[in-house]
């Protein structure tokens, strides 16, 4: 009997689906879930094509040799197809805030800062907004500080931008023309009313939205085998946690 998919496994599988057709993806140093989704995509594609995965700050998954500028140069050259962005706040126009709330520069709450967002959001064709916490304080109507805007006026050079928003509750796609989010699917166990209450911005949705697909048995086996092993090298704490969850969910023998 195969153990039912864990919530994090649904997310990782969703990330892998969002990366379909991507040839080079980069993930941040502290991004185990995007890394796992990328590794799954790589494993699924390997008979047909080679997905390149760059993990910032990693040694094993680092094929850059020109210092920390190379990722950005790569994006500027159009050689990076997908990237993940988080955000302390994300609003309905896909603006992201990684700086803080309650005034600037003297912020009441300060977050680390914008990192590469203000560049990569413009230059990477498929940016996936990924933030597990889905609450009204994260999913806001309007961010307090725009680290990187979701859309740009006509004329602004912008080959890149947001493609989707993935949270612990749901998957949205982003329509750059409207602009705004459309609900794609609700994760197992989350209802539409729950989602609406947790979201500070308006979004389009069906009356009866579909449920986010779970990985099938073969994909689950790949995830819990090879992907988990690969992930362990760079994210040992996350991998151990995942293994614990699997063990805990195991039906008593």
């Amino acid at each position, binding site marked *: 009997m195969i153990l039912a998919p864990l919530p994090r496994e649904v997310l990782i599988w969703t990330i892998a689906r969002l990366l379909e057709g991507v040839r080079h993806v980069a993930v941040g*140093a*502290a991004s185990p879930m995007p890394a796992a989704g990328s590794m799954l995509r790589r494993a699924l594609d390997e008979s047909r094509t080679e997905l390149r995965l760059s993990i910032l*700050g990693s*040694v094993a998954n680092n094929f*850059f*040799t*020109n*210092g*920390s*500028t190379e990722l*950005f*140069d790569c994006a*500027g050259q159009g050689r990076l197809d997908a990237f993940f962005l988080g955000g302390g706040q994300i609003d309905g126009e896909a603006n992201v805030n*990684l*700086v*803080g709330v309650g005034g*600037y*520069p*003297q*912020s*009441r709450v*300060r*977050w*680390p*800062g*914008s*990192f*590469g*967002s*203000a*560049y*990569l*959001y*413009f*230059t990477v064709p498929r940016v996936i907004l990924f933030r597990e916490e889905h609450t009204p304080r994260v999913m806001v109507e309007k961010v307090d*500080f*725009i*680290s*990187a*805007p979701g859309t*740009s*006026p006509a*004329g*602004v*050079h912008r080959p890149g931008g947001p493609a989707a928003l993935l949270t612990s509750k749901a998957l949205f796609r982003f329509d750059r023309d409207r602009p705004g989010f459309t609900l794609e699917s609700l994760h197992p166990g989350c209802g539409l009313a729950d989602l609406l209450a947790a979201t500070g911005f308006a979004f389009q949705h069906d009356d009866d939205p579909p449920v986010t697909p779970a990985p099938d048995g073969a994909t689950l086996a790949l995830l819990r085998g090879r992907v988990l092993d690969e992930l362990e090298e760079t994210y040992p*704490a996350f991998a151990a946690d995942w293994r614990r969850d699997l063990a805990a969910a195991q039906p008593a023998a």
Partner: protein
Amino acid sequence: MPGDLRAMASCVRPGMRIALPVDYAGVSMAMTRPLIENGAGDLHLVCVPTGGLQVDQLIGAGLVAMVETSAVSLGEAGGAPRFNQAVKDGTIRLRDATCPAIHAGLMAAQKGSPFLSIRGLIGSDLLRHRDDWRVIDNPFGAGGDPVVLIPAITPDIAIFHAPLADRFGNVWIGRRRELAAMAYASALTLVTVERIVRRNLLSDETTAAGTLPALYVAEIAEAPRGAWPYGLWGEYATDTAEIMRYASAARSAEGFAGYMAARAGVQA
């Protein structure tokens, strides 16, 4: 604490602009305490392109007037407590940037160019708050193509840690070429290393490829495990537990002082 580290720290004078590398690229944590004992304050830190423990400790010690950075964080250990507090208290000035803008500013300095152009940034609040950046209409476009110009970043001093140097003053930086970029852009570069070797790193093409020539290096001192508690590529891993201890202690000014006092023996 070795006297040579103290001597190196004395190059830093009040008000200087100091370039420091990102966590994983060779932070000279060994220089943090000498810098604090040296006492020169009012510093303008340039994080290449983000800052962490060292930046937080220099801020905690009251030496920092301004931070130019794309982020300050302790990574897995969370937010940088002294940085966050200083922002909240308004005791430091900020030049919030994005990583490639900092690289662009250093590259302009490396080339002796007044500025570099960079895509992105248009419509961000980063740009809105940076009165030292400019937006022009791309002179090569057909009109209506705004592009941001980043002025050269010319630090007075760059400080970093590397695996090895030779006795001729050449430093092996491997593929961490942002360290070279920092050195090119800076007037003075101070380097701590795990060890100094006798052979000339430039006389073998294989090692030469990863070597920053002595031309750019003012002073070098040996400081074994000099990046600790950060790791150093090919040498040792990050001591995350220690960074966690710091993160927890430094939540308050008193906790910070206590941590620094307790670690005095360990770091010296």
